[in-house]
């Protein structure tokens, strides 16, 4: 069939078509604000971040220590059993060196997002966070890191109460 079709539909526009008014557009800015409830498990997680601690939940069914914490285990489908404090150290599971923002505008200094497997949680229980106090070229998978906390007065019960994770000496 594709061999028989000579003209395919769909008309490509260039940015000049729009700038020079050859096609008309309508612009609109959505204004939407949300206030998300943190929930039971993450609510406690945030309160503990304010205290400078990371907290997880243990499931008695599979004996996993779940991070981020949840009130039910999605595998066993039972309520989780207890709060467990985990360490604020961990291992870089993977990372990126990111030079663009969400709108693809260029960043002067790259951000270093990483998945960090946190000590004390079950193997593979990573969280998304940022790396800091490290040159991008020195970051590697398997690198040992420690959380750098905001001062107690600055903390507000948010994931950003940890500023970033920095390499542990000798890691």
């Amino acid at each position: 069939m594709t061999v028989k079709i000579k003209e395919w539909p769909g008309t490509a526009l260039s940015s000049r078509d729009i700038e020079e008014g050859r096609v008309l557009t309508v612009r609109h800015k959505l204004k939407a604000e949300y206030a998300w409830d943190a929930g039971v498990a993450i609510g406690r997680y945030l309160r503990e971040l304010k205290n400078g601690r990371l907290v997880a939940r243990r499931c008695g069914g599979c004996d996993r220590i779940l991070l981020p914490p949840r009130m039910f285990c999605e595998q066993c489908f039972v309520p989780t059993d207890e709060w467990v404090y985990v360490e604020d150290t961990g291992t870089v599971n993977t990372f990126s060196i990111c030079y663009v923002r969400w709108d693809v505008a260029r960043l002067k200094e790259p951000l270093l997002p990483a998945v960090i497997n946190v000590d004390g949680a079950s193997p593979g229980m990573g969280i998304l966070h940022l790396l800091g106090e490290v040159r991008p070229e020195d970051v590697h998978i398997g690198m040992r890191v420690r959380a750098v906390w905001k001062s107690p007065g600055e903390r507000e019960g948010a994931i950003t109460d940890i500023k970033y994770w920095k390499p542990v000496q000798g890691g």
Partner: protein
Amino acid sequence: MAKVAVVGAGMTKFVRRAQETGRELSWQAAKMALDSAGLTLKDVDAVVIGSAPDAFDGVHMKGEYLADGSGAWRKPCIRNFVGGATGVFAPIQGWYHIASGQFDTVLVVCEEKMSSCHPHPQGAFITIFDHTTERPLGPNLLWIFALEMNRYMTVHGITKEEIALVAVKNKKNALDHPCAQLGEELTVEDVLNSEVLAWPVNRLDVSPASDGAAAVVMCAEHVAKRVSDKPVWVEGVGWHLDTAYWTNRDLYYPRYVEYAARMAYEMAGIKEPRKEIHIVEPYDPFDYKELHHLEGLLLCERGGAARLTADGVTQRDGDLPVCPSGGLLGVGNPIAAAGLMKVCELFWQLRGEAGKRQVPGTPRRGLAQAWGDLMQVGTVIILGR
């Protein structure tokens, strides 16, 4: 279970910004699919629409919005959205509409118009991250791909050079696709020297943002035999979802793709996929994803897809042609339409109608796969003649 066939396919050009609205694009693809099957809207019992986030178009309830262009007014209609996996899930829905015995003929239409979203459609993706534990960190969509690609490369010791070969192949294949946005003759060096977005991801490792639509007509066996002398049969379907706690999974391997593939292989009676699948259209929004998905589809051992690519096995004239269409990297990536474009490609390839893109050796069976959300949804369809 009733046998289900694809009897028609159509698509628009994939372009960075289309003059047509999403409804007009949908109509163009739907009309072409119906015409190619020699059918009219009167013959259609039900419609399936696939379209990704409403946020791209800025239109709430996009299924309803696209309904007229998709031929769905005054008909049973459902719109699905499973992220990037939507475009292959839509014909799976078409399949079960018919396999259930409820409908004889179903029109499946997928549309995406990403250009409406300003300043960049990537902004529409921010809300996929957890609003409390992730979004305050200022993430963007590239992060999850970069994190996954790095994990995949590091676990298997695969280099960026090896991965860039996929972009080179697919963009070259797309030169032969009349609807392609980014067909190009490139070298590995071009890919490696393109702007670094989020290491290890460079600009040419990534598919573009696109506008476009695609459609297929599906019908029950008794209709297919009446309207088509070359029906292409749905031999297997599979879909699977993994946890949204994406940082709690090892990203080096797409387990959910494997489970979706196993479901489809079992339905199709396929024991040795590598021997029994003749064309593959895996989802390739990023070049490493083609390799990742070939492994999840059990078409090579884990970590082995780079070797397959380097050896030329996945070229259009290779032993296992992969993305002969040009894929998302070359044809373009209007999310849901891109997945269905892969199904259109199998339809044309299996009927020997793919023109300059035709895979040699009259392939008998092909597989299309799509993937989406927080790297957690896999959808697979197997077509055969």
